[in-house]
């Protein structure tokens, strides 16, 4: 099986990562860069260039250079290069192809599968376009995941308890903020907001403007018309910004920046972090507007956010982190390279899908429902599919026949309504139940699945405290195909199964009704005349006959008729006893207990019975 790469397909830069020996690793491109500019260009001779090379020639070849194509994903916009039309998918595919080739060079093997990230606000057509881009690039896109979700995976938030997480993503040219609700392996995007034209470049620009102004104040010369000087300033500004994330002060030293009649001029400016913060305060504040909006849309207060994750290179700026801390009252999470965080998360998702990463999110659920077989062959589920494990659930069952001293617990797995259609995991008997009328004993059946997916099933007679157990380790051994088939079967046969289940239930009800009535009639003895009893006894005989047949509608009708007739005589008994202030003990017992509110099911009658 080939490796699954994780790709952060960004607006300005893209990044690719992979799981290696259980750890995510960012793959450097052929030029040694850990991120690759999302820039595609065609030379005049038709040669295709992607990444840094394309960026370096952009200014000489603007008509054949495509930047920020991500903004056009999912639209019908076409790029026309020398008479050939390219869709946004095709252009993005070229970036993906380059990342794929770099990954293959690194791994020394072919790569054919990928997980690709998209912004949380991407709609279906934008997601589909991204998937198509992958297909064009020769990649089977196993999953499209949200960028904030990937960031959360990279930070390992999914392994913690359920919480509300803010992902603050300040990239080169775009700003996105998302509020996620993470719990039980589910990532729900509560709200997103952002600014598609705000990023690190704006911070550089502020420093440049400041340097130009300082130089003018000192020398009276305007550098803005000197392209060469501005080039040097731009590089110096970016360098200063980066240095100010680690130091509180930096020196911008550009000798011979220009010259006038009096001789050469040098630029020598000391920039403190405080000054930088002052210069960029409005930008930081601009990120807070969407942040507050997102929080508002999610219906949360700042205090309700459990964690803030920082993504995007500019989230390294100390003023950004401080502002977030002030606003939310908690320290933002750092530690993972914010430029690589999303790709790392995508690689982890790839690892989960490929089975390299275990015990993480998506695997921590029971793939199919677990339950026991109850009277009439019905599958009674105790643990629903996709329940996150470890989990423990129990339910009280009872006996289906009088003097039943043993019950069989048949553990089954699957989605079908009838036990026989599901997979049998094992069975055991609990015997030594004291002889009693049916439905009196209380048997508690517990399912306990530990973190490794091992199922312990126990049955306990609450009357005697006697207990039996079984440990099932085979439950997680269903292959992906088997699980898919089981789920598909359940859907396919849902209607049929429901009907069969209803039939069994109708029969069970009829049996129960007959039993209850006969019992009550016996108990009543001579309190009622044979004349009063006649309609009921007649109907009991009739129902007994109907039950032998296969006409469910008739069984149902006769059961209801018996119920009605019995109610009448029960009322009579009740009226007779009223003067003594006592309710006939059996009037209550005679109520049909098919009202569904009691958590009591009958076990199927055991062999030993």
């Amino acid at each position: 099986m080939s490796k699954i790469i994780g790709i952060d397909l960004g607006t300005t830069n893209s990044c690719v990562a992979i799981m290696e020996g259980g750890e995510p690793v960012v793959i450097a491109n052929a030029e040694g860069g850990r991120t690759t500019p999302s820039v595609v260009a065609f030379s005049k001779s038709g040669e295709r260039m992607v990444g840094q090379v394309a960026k370096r020639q952009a200014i000489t070849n603007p008509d054949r250079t495509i930047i920020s194509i991500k903004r056009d994903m999912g639209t019908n916009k076409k790029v026309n290069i020398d008479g050939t039309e390219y869709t946004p998918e095709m252009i993005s595919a070229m970036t993906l192809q380059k990342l794929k080739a770099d990954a293959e060079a690194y791994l020394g093997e072919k790569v054919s599968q990928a997980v690709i990230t998209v912004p949380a606000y991407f709609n279906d057509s934008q997601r589909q376009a991204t998937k198509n881009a992958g297909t064009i690039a020769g990649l089977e896109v196993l999953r499209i995941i949200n960028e904030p979700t990937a960031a959360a995976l990279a930070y390992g938030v999914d392994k913690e308890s359920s919480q509300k997480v803010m992902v603050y993503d300040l990239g080169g040219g775009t700003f996105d903020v998302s509020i996620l609700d993470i719990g039980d392996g589910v990532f729900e995007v509560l709200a997103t907001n952002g600014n598609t034209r705000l990023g690190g470049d704006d911070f550089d620009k502020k420093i440049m403007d400041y340097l130009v102004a300082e130089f003018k104040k000192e020398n009276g010369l305007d550098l803005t018309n000197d392209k060469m000087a501005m080039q040097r300033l731009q590089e110096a500004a970016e360098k200063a910004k980066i240095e100010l994330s680690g130091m509180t002060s930096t020196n911008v030293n550009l000798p011979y920046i220009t010259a006038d009649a009096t001789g050469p001029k040098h630029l020598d400016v000391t920039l403190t972090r405080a000054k930088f913060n002052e210069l960029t305060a409005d930008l930081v504040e601009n990120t807070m507007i969407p942040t507050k909006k997102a929080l508002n849309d999610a219906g949360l207060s700042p205090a309700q956010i459990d964690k803030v994750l920082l993504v995007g290179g500019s989230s390294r700026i100390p003023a950004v982190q401080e502002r977030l801390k002030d606003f939310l009252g908690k320290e933002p999470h750092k530690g993972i390279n914010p430029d690589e965080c999303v790709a790392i998360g995508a690689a982890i998702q790839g690892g989960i899908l490929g089975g390299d990463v275990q015990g993480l999110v998506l695997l921590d659920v029971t793939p199919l429902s677990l339950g026991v077989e109850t009277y009439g062959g019905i599958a009674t589920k105790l643990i629903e599919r996709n329940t996150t494990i470890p989990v423990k659930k129990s339910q009280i069952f009872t006996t289906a026949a009088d003097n039943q001293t043993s019950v069989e617990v048949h553990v089954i797995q699957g989605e079908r309504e009838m036990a026989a259609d599901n997979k049998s995991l094992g069975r055991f008997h609990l015997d030594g139940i004291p002889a009693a009328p049916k439905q009196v004993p209380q048997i508690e059946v517990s399912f306990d699945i530990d973190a490794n997916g091992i199922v312990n099933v126990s049955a306990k007679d609450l009357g005697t405290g006697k207990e039996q157990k079984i440990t099932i380790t085979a439950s997680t051994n269903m292959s992906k195909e088997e699980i898919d088939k089981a789920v598909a079967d359940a859907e396919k046969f849902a209607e049929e199964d429901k009907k069969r289940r209803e039939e069994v239930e109708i029969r069970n009800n009829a049996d129960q009704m007959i039993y209850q009535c006969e019992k009550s009639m016996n108990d009543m003895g001579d309190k009622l005349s044979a004349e009063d009893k006649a309609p009921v006894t007649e109907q009991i005989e009739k129902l007994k006959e109907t039950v032998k047949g296969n006409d469910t509608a008739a069984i149902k009708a006769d059961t209801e008729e018996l119920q009605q007739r019995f109610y009448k005589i029960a009322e009579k008994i009740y009226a007779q006893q009223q003067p003594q202030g006592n309710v006939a003990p059996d009037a209550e017992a005679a109520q049909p207990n098919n009202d569904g509110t009691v958590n009591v099911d009958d076990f199927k009658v055991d062999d030993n019975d």
Partner: protein
Amino acid sequence: MKDKKKQTQEETVEETVQPVEDIPEEKAPVTDEWHDRFIRLAADFDNFKKRSKAEKDAVYSNAVADAVSTLLPILDNLERAVLAVEEGPQRDGVKMVLDQALKAFESMNVTPVGEAGDPFDPQIHNAVMHVDDESLGENTIAEVLQRGYRLGEKVVRHAMVKVAN
């Protein structure tokens, strides 16, 4: 009669379930899965060893490249100084320092790239300006704004250039 019916249901259920003995056999896939994971991990490790060796070999040249690129701005400024200072002993002195520096770089196999008139090549040049000039050829470097350098074959810094046409 009632009992008989139950008996029949019981039998139907018994027939459809698998015998308990089947369960241990289902453990086989676990072994296969672990075997597969083991093989893959071994392959990963083998590739990792190969890559580590290549990376180790590259460490020296990468370290030199890092050191060189840190020193390059000093070289640039010496060049700027030579151009800015009027002719005379001051300029000659600075020029001698520049030559000395260039020689030192040369001894480390560092060579300059990018001359006006060269055809533009984005693999070694970084275009930051564009000019239309009939006197120059198609896609030609009109001016080198900042010289680029190579360490052996590896580009340490791309030449910052103005490209014509």
